[in-house]
């Protein structure tokens, strides 16, 4: 699950964990899986990040936030955007998934279940408010590119579902 951490220097982890996705403030970019590598080379932190969706407007902000956080810890940095390998929702860590849930966004299901939920009208996405699975797809596209909009038919609350991207 944490395949993203393999090229990350230990010393940089606590700094990067403090940077969060500006659209989902409870979720650290480390738990989101967008940091692909981070290494100290000749005193400069070289960080590679990958976008969740091509048009994700959060990427520019995340890049700036990383530079700022590293600066505050005394490191100059170079942040690079890479496209390969393409991000997948599998890289969201367990901790990230619970953070999403608590924040009111249902975390992504596996690809087959995701298809059933988004195309087959199956009621399997758990409501983030009351845990019921008596939920209904309202729209395949939600408040941001990565989410779909659902409604719980038990507690009647609308909520976001983080779409599976694989």
């Amino acid at each position, binding site marked *: 699950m944490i395949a993203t951490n393999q090229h990350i220097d230990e010393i940089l982890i606590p700094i990067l964990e403090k940077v969060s996705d500006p659209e989902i403030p409870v979720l650290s970019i480390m738990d989101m899986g967008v940091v692909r590598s981070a290494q100290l080379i000749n005193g400069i932190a070289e960080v590679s990040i990958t*976008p969740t*969706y*091509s*048009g*994700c*407007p959060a990427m520019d902000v995340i890049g700036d936030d990383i530079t700022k956080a590293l600066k505050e810890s005394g490191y100059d940095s170079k942040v690079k955007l890479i*496209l*390969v*390998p*393409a*991000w997948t929702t599998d890289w969201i860590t367990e901790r990230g998934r619970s953070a999403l849930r608590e924040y009111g966004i249902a975390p992504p299901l596996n690809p087959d279940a995701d298809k059933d939920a*988004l*195309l087959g009208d199956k009621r399997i996405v758990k409501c983030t408010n009351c845990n019921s699975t008596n939920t209904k797809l*309202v*729209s*395949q*596209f*939600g*408040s*941001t*590119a990565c989410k779909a*909009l659902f409604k719980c038919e038990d507690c009647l609350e609308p909520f976001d579902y983080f*779409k599976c*991207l*694989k």
Partner: protein
Amino acid sequence: MKTNLYNYILELADNCLIAGQRLGELCGHGPSLETDIACTNISLDLFGQTRSYFQYAAEIKGKDATEDSIAFLRTEREYKNILLVEQPNRDFAYTIARQYLFDVFHLLLLEKLQFSQDLTLSAIAKKSIKEVSYHVRFTGDWIKRLGDGTEISHEKMQTAIDGLWIYTNELFEVTEEAKELAEEGIAVDVSTLKEAYYEKVTALLEEGTLTVPESKYFQKGGKAGIHTEHMGYLLSDMQYMQRTYPNMKW
């Protein structure tokens, strides 16, 4: 400069840019909140893909070229998008039909482009496939829903399909640049996608109880920079800020 590659990237990117611009026009004007958000989400994906292509193109062009200068500071004849994507949002049926007719092609193209010998193009394609699979689902669903809906929705969707059909053949025109690059394993020979395309589109239209047009006449020109009358208006809107306040930045 690798002129062929540069032009080929524009050929890929301009379709995304102009299709995205048209969908973006629906921001705040969609027929319902959900469709409004969906269309603008798709637009955002397409703009994201455009940025990746243009950043690469700017690197190849060198000098002062940036993704913004390529997006905003060309004249109409320098845009290489197909005529289909610049057609206006006459009504929601037109918007969906236009986007669907493009989405099916786009996905077939990317499925091939991911194996390009050019690593950047391959990377952009791999990333985009995931997004475009959602696009084609959304627009395909709406084609069926409107086609197999009420008498009026059926009629509107049929009119849109009939009106846009003459622009579909251009999707499979192979430009000189693409031809040369295809031989090197960099570009996709789009003429090879034609059969699969019409098969898919025909199946879906029939599912939506729509009639597949039998036009013998097809319109083309976009890839050579000869656009329909709608393109100038689209560009004047899209380029407004850069033309009015040159070099402005967010």
